[in-house]
């Protein structure tokens, strides 16, 4: 069942088009990811969906109702975690959660109970009475997510939820996102960590320069980038004649392409399934000590690079600079 329908959504600032007539659906209880480099239009898209940016053109339909011009009505069922924690420094963790519950109209008793539950769930029970300004970055992030959940929203928008925080908190947040989704919350996620999208999302849209390049299930996207079978063989660096070895390999085994990736790794590429045993026997006979051979599975990153032509490392560097 579709919970958000986006049709021909456009946002322009004078002559600059930030988002250009994008369309997609988000299904109930799925984790939907929006992936793209800096300035691709991810945050602008989220801002239009949550009511923080005006829509130039297009339609936003929540649960079958066209709320394009009245996003306020959708705000009751959505929770938002912005890319920067924006709670109140002067209030404690507990007070922040209670305040966030109050602005959604939760009665005092309910918001107190819910705040305690969330603090425990996010492992922040001990810091409940500490002021927000005294929290670490990871704790701030967790409390910001907790604050977005206090009114039990049906849809949770997460804008770069794990950027700039410690590994332990990242793990915890990812597990919590999975847990929330298991309990039926629809998650709309933007991230520049492709492996995060691969691990968490059911479906992903690649966005670049304000346009959606591809949209599909994570498995489908990965499989679509699989053209050949790749095996990497790692061996001890011994003295050998590189050119001669590769020549012999390619001559002996038809239909495979062997490349020397570095001094200790050979990459074998083939359209057909590779029978690894004869290759390894051959290399052993040639005097190489093989300690690992593994199949390289295509990833969402391959699919992203293939679809957008954007190098991930470049994207990460840009984000870090920001």
């Amino acid at each position, binding site marked *: 069942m579709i919970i958000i329908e986006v049709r021909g959504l456009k946002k322009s*600032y004078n002559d600059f088009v930030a988002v250009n007539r994008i369309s997609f659906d988000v299904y109930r209880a799925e984790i939907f990811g929006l992936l793209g480099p800096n300035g691709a239009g991810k945050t602008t898209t989220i801002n239009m969906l949550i009511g923080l*940016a005006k829509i130039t053109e297009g339609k936003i339909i929540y649960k079958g109702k066209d709320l394009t011009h009245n996003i306020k009505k959708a*705000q009751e069922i959505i929770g938002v975690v912005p890319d920067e924690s924006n*709670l109140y420094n002067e209030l404690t963790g507990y007070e922040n959660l209670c305040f966030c519950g*109050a602005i*959604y109209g939760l009665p005092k008793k309910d918001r107190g109970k819910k705040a305690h539950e969330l603090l425990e769930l996010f492992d922040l029970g001990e810091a409940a009475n500490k002021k927000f300004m005294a929290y670490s970055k990871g704790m701030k992030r967790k409390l910001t997510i907790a604050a977005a959940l206090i009114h039990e929203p049906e849809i949770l928008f997460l804008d770069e939820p794990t950027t700039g925080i410690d590994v332990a908190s990242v793990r915890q947040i990812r597990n919590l996102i999975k847990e929330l989704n298991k309990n039926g919350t629809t998650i709309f996620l933007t991230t520049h960590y492709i492996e995060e999208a691969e691990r968490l999302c059911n479906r992903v849209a690649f966005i670049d320069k304000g346009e959606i390049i591809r949209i599909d299930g994570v498995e489908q996207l990965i499989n679509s980038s699989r053209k050949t079978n790749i095996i990497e063989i790692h061996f001890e660096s011994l003295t050998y004649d590189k050119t001669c070895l590769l020549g012999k390999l390619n001559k002996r085994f038809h239909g495979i392409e062997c490349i020397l990736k570095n001094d200790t790794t050979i990459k074998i590429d083939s359209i057909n399934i590779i029978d690894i045993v004869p290759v390894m026997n051959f290399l052993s006979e040639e005097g190489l000590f093989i300690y690992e051979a593994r199949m390289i599975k295509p990833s969402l990153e391959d699919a992203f690079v293939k679809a957008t032509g954007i190098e991930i490392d470049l994207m990460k560097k840009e984000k870090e600079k920001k």
Partner: protein
Amino acid sequence: MKSSIAFWNILLKDMKNYYLKPPNISWGIIFPFAWMLMLFIKSKSTFSITEVFPGIVAISVLFGTTSLLSVTITFERRSRSFERLLLAPFKTELLVLAKITGAILFGIFNSIVPVLLSVLYFKSVVINWPILVSGVFLLSVISTLLGLFISVSAKEVFEAQTYSNFFRFPMIFLCGLFIPVTALPLIIQPLSYILPVTYGVDILHYAISGNNFLPVAIDLIVLVAFCFILFYFSIYNIRRKWIV
């Protein structure tokens, strides 16, 4: 019900976070006290409490409300916590009302010291207490709305302070706080009439000494009209500038 919970909690949070902080409370007490003391020392022989009483009340309310509201809203906007309020499922009108109520109450609190000093120490006479209370309330509302108008226009806290001063200091001279509007050069007087504080101060003059220059009914109507205009103009500006 949900809206009233939201309203009440935004107000409580603002009171706790900003208005009831010791520096602000002490400022609300010291500021009017210092002004009274200055006028008292400066003009010992000619000091007429009924002449300066409305001005001191007005200046206390004007500076108290505009300073705090413009800074707090700009600060919350800068730290993006204001976004949290914009994302809550209630009308922008209610949000603005909740944000300004704290400042209005703070403005009223700021008027207490000069009123008490004037009445209890200087034995000033107030000829119409209900009108004085109404005047203080309306002046507080209009000053707060001026603060809101400024904060919506400013991006940084220092900008808000600069804009506030740009409005406030000329008002001391133009709005009849210490110099009667009728005593101003004719060429300047139209400026006084377009500044809402003029009408608030005139109500105070009426309530304290009966020395007003416009009928009180006109003052009240004009002030209420200004309140509506500034309130809705600020909401329009928030929607136009902050939801881009």
